[in-house]
């Protein structure tokens, strides 16, 4: 019943010809990079265990799935159509920022500033990810949404804030 009023999803260009198109290559690769950097971080603290790799992967992936489901539900309330793989792509871009945080934390960890460097970088990358999500969602949600659903602006800001929260949640700073 809700689906009947939805406008069809337009025929968007491929990522190779559109800078704003979502892709899954970057999220996948940066997730792998982030997991490996976490394992390296545990290893430099002499706490490495092979279980670290599946643990971190599962934590990231389950968090992302929950986030995608929440966003999908919000879109559903607003009666805005969106492919679910697009949401996996948009929420997966935060791993790029997380990898950078972890890399900087590891580099400066040798000087004894691991935690501080991590959180300073985190402030930048997390706000950048949130801003990215804000602009992306603001441009993807149709201007006219369901009259009875939640406000469009509220949802956009909530999606952006969720980036900050999930990036905080999946950070692994125990052994930095």
């Amino acid at each position, binding site marked *: 019943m809700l689906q009947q009023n939805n406008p069809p999803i337009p025929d968007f260009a491929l990522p190779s010809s559109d800078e704003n198109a979502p892709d*899954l290559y970057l999220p996948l690769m940066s997730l792998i990079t982030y997991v490996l950097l976490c394992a390296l971080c545990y290893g430099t603290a002499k706490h490495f265990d092979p279980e670290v790799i599946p643990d971190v992967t599962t934590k990231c992936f389950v968090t992302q799935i929950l986030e995608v489901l929440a966003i999908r539900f919000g879109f559903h309330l607003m009666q805005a159509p969106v492919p679910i793989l697009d949401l996996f792509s948009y929420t997966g871009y935060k791993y790029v920022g997380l990898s950078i945080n972890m890399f900087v934390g590891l580099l400066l960890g040798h000087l004894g500033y691991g935690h501080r460097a991590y959180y300073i970088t985190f402030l930048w990358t997390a706000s950048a990810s949130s801003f990215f999500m804000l602009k992306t969602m603001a441009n993807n949600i149709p201007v006219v949404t369901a009259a009875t659903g939640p406000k469009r602006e509220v949802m956009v800001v909530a999606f952006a804030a969720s980036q900050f929260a999930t990036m905080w949640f999946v950070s692994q700073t125990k052994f930095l």
Partner: protein
Amino acid sequence: MSYYDYSNTGNQDGGGNSGGGFYGGGFNQQQQQQQQPGGGFFDGGANAQQWQQPQSDPMQGYPGSAPQGQQQQQQQNFWNPATMASVAAVAAGGMNNDSMLDFASNAAGSFLQSGTARMVPGLESSMLRLRRYFAVDNYYVRGKMLKIIFPFRSKNWKRVVGSFSWRLWSIF
């Protein structure tokens, strides 16, 4: 048997026995001998003498040289001409790289069309859906990473609708 058929037809089509390609000459003669009508692998005792013949001098004329043509024509009917051509190229060219690559990519491409892939439910449709998300190039990846790390100065956030490329457009 079918593996032998490949090398045999390859030598017939692609420049005769002179190339030889991957297989030695004597070995080929043995295979041709096995492919005579009635000379099947599992025919039993009636053809037992054919198994002893290749051990004599292979360069002497076989009784099997005449029926070979008929056998060839039968095979031409059974096999797809395109497959025949690529297989022949592989066998005659001594496994050169291009033809091997061609053959491999043809095989990979036809895997999704073949029956085996259709047995996995949803494989084809999910691959077709996922393919769009992995159509990236270096330019896109570099720009996207910069956009994720420094999003504050970008102005353009609209997605492109349709198949024309704004990058080509921006040249003019």
